[in-house]
């Protein structure tokens, strides 16, 4: 028999990978990666502050701003951060040369990190490397200025880097209990980042039996200006497949899997010891499919790594366009849309506007005989209003929508004014639009105020009166209707509903109905 030795897993030598820690926070992350044992990969620490630089465990260190800051930090100034990085550009270029993948760990918001990261990313890209940036965003309490600095830098990085993984420090609270010490919180944050880095490295240098590699990684992350969705979980023992998956999904970056719902492509990489079975993979994928939209492109890979022993790790990587992420407290409408209308894909924003407004305007058209001014002017400001009413149904709230409506209300009048001068039907039309503007707008304002208090009930009543607005033919009629709605819902609040106990005899103690939540009763008093 002839033996044909071959490397079934096509490993990339880890010497082609470099992990860079930039600034103080970056150094911390780097240390964590090093301490967790990332054998093989080269590490490079970059910092302007010599003290933290010397404390770093990285083998390679480059001091930034030798002449500019002379060993001190940049003091939170991103411009200075930029300059010191530029000063060391040649050195950095040398260090990066020839590497296939660069991981850049950086804490945004400060000087060195925010200023330097885009430049280093650019240098690395110029050297032909695939750049994955792991960035942390500052805490909210660090102030708006730092947040802005971080945001600016992040925007640049989103364009420059191949993949951007963002950890928001504000979400760190979800990793640990509020009672635990701050060092534990930071440790947990660092650990998560280190896990992510290791998982990506594992993926890239060990593409495995079922091959996924750089190319797939790029596919999964290929959306410009996107945020990386990332989750990785490791588990051992019985039922390890399910446990690993739930660990991966519990990553704050994934929002318990909710964000995956909108992903266009998902990369799944499973890595296990030699006892990894096909059945386990099957089981795992079956579970995962529930979290991923049916039409999403699932890039699947599996690898065997003896060092995993009896553990199984799963890594989920995907990307979402940035806007999508912000819009995320998603209204269910937006969530379902991609499934129903595959051709639309990820163009969102507009698609909600598409279906409804036309017919509504049609129904309006007692102004139809004289088409010039009205179809252009009058309905236009309304369009957003109508749209968001649709969205603002009882199911969910989109706050942007409310802002839009606020804008649309004052816009109405200037638009309507020329119509006034026009002719009779147009004047009618404008008067309808104008008059409700007073009482209804006032009501709406009240509602909006109430909504800011985040009462769960208000959602229901806010949308209903507003949606009445365009359809009603008479103002008094309209007011009648809205008034009726108000009463009904207030009644609900008064404690008419007792939920599950609505059919039982009330338990009255000292005049209190025990079946009504004390939370509501106390509030009322």
């Amino acid at each position, binding site marked *: 028999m002839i033996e044909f030795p071959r490397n079934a897993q096509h490993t990339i030598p880890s010497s082609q990978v470099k992990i860079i820690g930039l600034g103080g926070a970056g150094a911390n992350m780097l240390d964590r990666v090093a301490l967790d044992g990332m054998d093989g990969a080269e590490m490079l620490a970059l910092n302007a502050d010599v003290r933290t630089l010397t404390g770093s465990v990285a083998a390679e260190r480059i001091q930034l701003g030798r002449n500019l800051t002379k060993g001190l930090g940049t003091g939170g100034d991103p411009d200075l951060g930029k300059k010191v990085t530029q000063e060391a550009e040649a050195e950095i270029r040398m260090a990066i040369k020839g590497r296939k993948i660069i991981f850049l760990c950086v804490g945004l918001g400060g000087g060195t990190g925010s200023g330097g990261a885009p430049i280093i990313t650019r240098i690395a890209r110029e050297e032909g490397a695939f750049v994955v940036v792991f960035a942390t965003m500052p805490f909210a309490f660090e102030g708006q200025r730092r947040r802005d600095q971080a945001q600016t830098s992040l925007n640049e990085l989103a364009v420059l880097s191949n993949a951007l993984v963002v950890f928001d420090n504000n979400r760190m609270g979800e990793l640990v209990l509020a009672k635990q010490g701050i060092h534990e919180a930071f440790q947990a944050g660092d650990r998560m980042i280190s896990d992510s880095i290791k998982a990506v490295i594992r993926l890239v240098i060990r593409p495995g039996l079922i091959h996924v590699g750089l190319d797939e990684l790029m596919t999964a992350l290929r959306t410009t200006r996107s945020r990386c969705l990332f989750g990785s979980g490791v588990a051992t023992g019985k039922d390890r497949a399910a446990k690993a998956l739930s660990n991966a999904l519990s990553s704050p970056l994934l929002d318990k899997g*909710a964000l995956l719902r909108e992903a266009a492509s998902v990369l799944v990489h499973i890595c296990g010891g030699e006892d990894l079975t096909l059945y386990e993979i099957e089981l795992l994928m079956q579970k995962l499919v529930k979290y991923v939209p049916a039409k999403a492109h699932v890039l699947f890979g599996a690898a065997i790594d003896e060092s995993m022993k009896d553990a199984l790790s799963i890594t989920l990587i995907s990307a979402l366009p940035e806007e999508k992420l912000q819009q995320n407290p998603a209204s269910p409408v937006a*969530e379902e849309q991609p499934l129903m209308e595959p051709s639309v894909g990820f163009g969102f924003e507009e698609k909600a506007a598409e279906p409804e407004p036309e017919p509504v305007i049609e129904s309006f058209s007692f102004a139809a005989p004289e088409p010039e001014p009205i179809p252009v002017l009058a309905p236009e400001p309304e369009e957003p209003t109508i749209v968001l009413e649709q969205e603002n149904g009882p199911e969910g709230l989109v706050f942007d929508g409310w802002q839009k409506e606020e804008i649309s209300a004052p816009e109405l009048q200037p638009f309507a004014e020329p119509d006034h001068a026009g002719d009779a039907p147009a004047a009618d039309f404008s008067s309808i639009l104008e008059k409700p503007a007073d009482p209804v707008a006032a009501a709406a304002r009240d509602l909006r105020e109430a909504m800011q208090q985040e009462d*769960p009930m208000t959602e229901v009543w806010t949308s209903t009166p507003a949606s009445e607005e365009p359809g009603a033919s008479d103002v008094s009629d309209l007011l009648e209707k809205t008034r009726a709605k108000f009463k009904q819902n207030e009644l609900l609040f008064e404690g008419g509903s007792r*939920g599950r106990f609505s059919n039982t005899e009330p338990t009255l103690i000292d005049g209190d109905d025990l079946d009504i*939540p*004390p939370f509501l009763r106390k509030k009322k008093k």
Partner: protein
Amino acid sequence: MARAKIHVALEIGTSKVCMLVGEVKSDGSVKILGIGTAKSAGVRKGEICDYSKIRACVEEARHKAEESSDVEIGSVFLSVTGAHFVGMNNTGTYRLPDKEKQIRPEHLKEAEQIAKGVSIGEENVFLHTIPRHYRVDAFEHNSSPVGLFGKTLESDYHVVYGIGTRIQNSIKCARELQMEVDDVVFAPIATAQYALNRSERERGALLIDIGGGTTDYALYLNGAIAASGCIAAGGEHVTNDIHMLTELPFSKAEALKIREGDASGDQSRSVGGIKIPFDEKGFTHQEVKRELLNEVIRQRMLEILTLVKKRLPAGAIERLGTGIILSGGSSTMHGLDKLAYQVFGQSVYRAEKSEISGVQANFQDPQFATALGLIRYAQLADIEKMQKGGFLSKLWPFGRKS
């Protein structure tokens, strides 16, 4: 002396029907042979409101219990609860006839009759008359004064009464399934048999059994029961509150209550939100603020505990030597012990006893406390019968004697 005897406890609760088969061995130890539980339907606030539904549930529990214990269940001890039950203390004073100097059982019975002479309204019936203390010529006796010499016999009783028809309906439910009812016991009194031991009662203890639909309590001072009662609010109310305020479906609200809820009022536990992921059934993603959730739970629990506190006799809390003992399914709520401490200012324990053998999983859970207490009650009732040769069997074996 006696051979092993098998007793069956039946508890028809708001959240579950529980049937427990226990064997009382000749040496007095109890072994749990089997257990059968079924999710309850048709019970609200501890009382049956849908007869046919609950019958199906009891039947299911019975099948399970029979299967796991390999015992054919013919008769049960039934626990009942509900807001209509009232526990009160009363004293019966009997002056012995001139010729007699020694107290005889008949005199004791007479005193009990006098104590029962309280007006309880047409529809009510007595469920328990538990002797607390006796006084013979104003001198305290803790055990039965039969045989002592004296002129006046005073006996304090704790009397529990409730609406007769409702109790009858519970009994009917068991009878229709061909099970005889050996005895009907007010739930907190049964639970106390299991959750409190003699020394705890001696020092003074308050048992609070927070179940699904009701919160039952029993107060023991100086070894004798001093107060008992029921408040028609429990874990199901918490779920309902969460449901009403978050608009989550009941199943999700229940899961949220159990997994995430915290009643302690600790700020640090109310940080952030809980994501409820979508599931296969099409439930859409939602987020609930921990602050809201915990506050809803806390308010409800606070109210329940405060109501219990209000109903206790004055000065009782200060006299508790042991403290508060929490039991029942809802007592597993996170942070409840802290809240109870805030309300009562006494040390708080959970009922965790293991004087009973059998499969551990069967009785470690506090939601089985009442059923276990019933077995214990049955055992004590048996002992009572045997010792007194049956002649005092109508007196419940409580107070110092237990």
